[in-house]
């Protein structure tokens, strides 16, 4: 349907899906023009969660930024830290130690599993409701996610906003007993992943709700700069971990799952395959972490301990939602001159005006859930 041919003032009902709505995964508003229950036009209005992170980065020294960007994509803080610190390291061409690289890879994959579990739970909530089977999926996913947070708690001392990476390496080395806990946890999650499939994929209702719904074709995805699982579900085989390896990914065996349908079900399949793949990587890595230092630079003892060389750098990592990039311009002081964060969710959200028209409200909710936007990083 062509939104332009409809008169917004005509016989259409305008429905504000959000900013406070159970399915918006944060604070997000989509303005829907509805004909009956069928959407004619949809306009997303992000920005309710804007905290001025990029401006804040200009006011804080390099070492103080890491705990701030933790809160951008608030379900995968480790990967945020990785992205921003990689940019700062690229700025001064700092080579991180091999052990730090391995720990970063390990942490990123552990975090990816946690992030995908949260997505799966909320996706269930979107389809099954807070008072139904969706809540069961949600609770089961969170049950396992808590175990992941326990691992991080043991490693970094914090369950969520770790501040465990710093410019040049890591702040925390893994403690004793960590490998055993991770092995147990991720083996268990690997078994439980089959239960999620049994609850969802084997269920005709789930398939009816997701197959053929919210189809993103590859061309549209490329035009909008969508990345990550959404892109891979549309048939484009692109994964920064494999194609632009960072940290220790060039030493890790990695299969990139790709689906070609582009609908919600394909996105589900890609994410579940990634979840299993990440579990496998974690279990592979946990025993093979090389010995050595964890930080290439001298540990931070002063706020202005790290000064960026004049210049600019871009570094991107493959987050759970796609390419999470940081572009930093430095003017030689201890603070970045400009710090631009490229959040994958922002590009995912920009799909909504293309996906929503022609669908009814139920499908829009499912589509939104399958895009997995995290509004913290959309609005920054």
């Amino acid at each position: 349907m062509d939104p332009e041919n409809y008169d917004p003032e005509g016989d259409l009902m305008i429905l504000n899906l959000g900013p406070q709505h159970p399915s918006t995964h944060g604070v997000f508003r989509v303005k829907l023009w509805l004909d009956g229950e069928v959407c004619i036009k949809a306009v997303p209005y992000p920005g309710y969660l804007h905290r001025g992170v990029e401006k804040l980065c200009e006011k804080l020294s390099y070492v103080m930024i890491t705990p701030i960007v933790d809160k951008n994509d608030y379900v995968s803080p480790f990967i945020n830290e990785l992205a921003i610190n990689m940019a700062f390291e690229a700025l001064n061409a700092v080579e991180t130690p091999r052990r730090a690289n391995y720990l970063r890879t390990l942490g990123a994959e552990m975090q990816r599993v946690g992030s995908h579990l949260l997505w799966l739970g909320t996706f269930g909530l979107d389809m099954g409701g807070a008072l139904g089977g969706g809540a069961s999926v949600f609770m089961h996913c969170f049950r396992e996610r808590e175990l992941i947070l326990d691992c991080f708690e043991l490693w970094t001392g914090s369950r969520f906003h770790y501040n465990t990476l710093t410019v040049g390496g890591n702040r925390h080395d893994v403690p004793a007993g960590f490998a055993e806990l991770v092995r147990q946890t991720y083996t268990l999650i690997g078994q439980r992943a089959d239960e999620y499939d049994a609850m969802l994929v084997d269920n005709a209702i789930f398939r009816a709700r997701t197959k053929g719904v919210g189809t993103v074709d590859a061309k549209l995805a490329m035009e909008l700069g969508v990345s990550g699982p959404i892109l891979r579900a549309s048939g484009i085989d692109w994964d920064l971990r494999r194609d632009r390896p960072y940290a220790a990914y060039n030493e890790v065996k990695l299969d990139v799952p790709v689906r070609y349908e582009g609908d919600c079900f394909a996105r589900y399949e890609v994410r579940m395959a990634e979840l299993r793949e990440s579990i496998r990587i974690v279990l592979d890595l946990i025993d093979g972490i090389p010995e050595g230092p964890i930080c290439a630079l001298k540990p931070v003892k002063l706020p202005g301990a790290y000064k960026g060389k004049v210049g600019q750098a871009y570094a991107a990592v493959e987050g759970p939602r796609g390419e999470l990039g940081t572009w930093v311009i430095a003017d030689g002081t201890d603070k970045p001159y400009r710090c631009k964060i490229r959040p994958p969710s922002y590009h995912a959200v920009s799909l909504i005006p293309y996906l929503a028209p022609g669908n009814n409200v139920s499908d829009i909710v499912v589509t939104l859930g399958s895009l997995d936007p995290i509004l913290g990083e959309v609005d920054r």
Partner: protein
Amino acid sequence: MSVILENPWLLGAVAGFVVINAMMVTAAWSIWFERKFAGAMQNRPGPTQVGWAGLLQPVADLLKLIQKEDIVPTNADRALFNLAPPLGMILVLAGLAVFPWAPGWVPADLDIGLLFILSISSLITIPVWMAGWASNNKYALLGGMRAAAQAVSFEVPLLLSALVPIILGGSLRLGDIVAAQADGRWFALWPPGPGSVAFVLFMLASLAEANRIPFDIPEAESELVAGITTEYVGMKFGLIYLAEYLHTAVSSLLGATLFLGGWDGPGPDGIHWLLLKSFALFAGIFWVRWTLLRYRADQFMALCWRVFVPVSLACVAVAAVWRVYA
């Protein structure tokens, strides 16, 4: 005592008082049961704080709801808005009047009892739609319209599947239907085929009528915030909520009566068998509710018309053939 038994008005009043209060209390504690049950499915304890194992949680909920400010939205249709919750409650409770609880225990022994229950409970769409329309809220309106749109599609298989025990039992009186299933010849088991399929269809359609997942499309809290109940607060919300539970309870009672032999069972017949069977059905409904996802409105209607209606028609035909030739 004899005064009460001889005067039909007094008898009706006393029986009604007892049944209504018993059902209200049951419904209140069924919420506790559901929360515990759902908690167990999700590996969490459920309510624990109020009373032993949270048993007083319904009382606490009730006190909270009563204390809340009674808000009617601006520009809402005040009369309809206020009428909808009690009307829904009344319609659900009215169906209980003709239930045969045990041999001889029937508050009002109508000879068209089943017809009465089915017609009264299909009226439940009206207060739901009323609530959606009168709230002056777009989400509530969408919910009410969904309820109105899907009402026909689940009522048809509901009635057709209820036709099977009518044909097999040869009566519209619930007591006669139960009596026809005496000695373990429950319609869900005997004759094999139409009764059991009709039983499944009846329970599924009842899920839709009681707004339960997978068919809780008018409420659909992840899509429509809270659907028809979006604007309701306090005790009016409480009434709608309680009416849904009561409706689920009535549906399980009806399912147990029509297909599982009512008060019949091994050993002495009586109300305990009915309660046991309907409790099993009730728990089954909650098991389904806390496991499955929700259908989309159009998918649900397609399912009703393309699957449920033909299958229930086939059940009716087979049952009729059985009735005539066997």
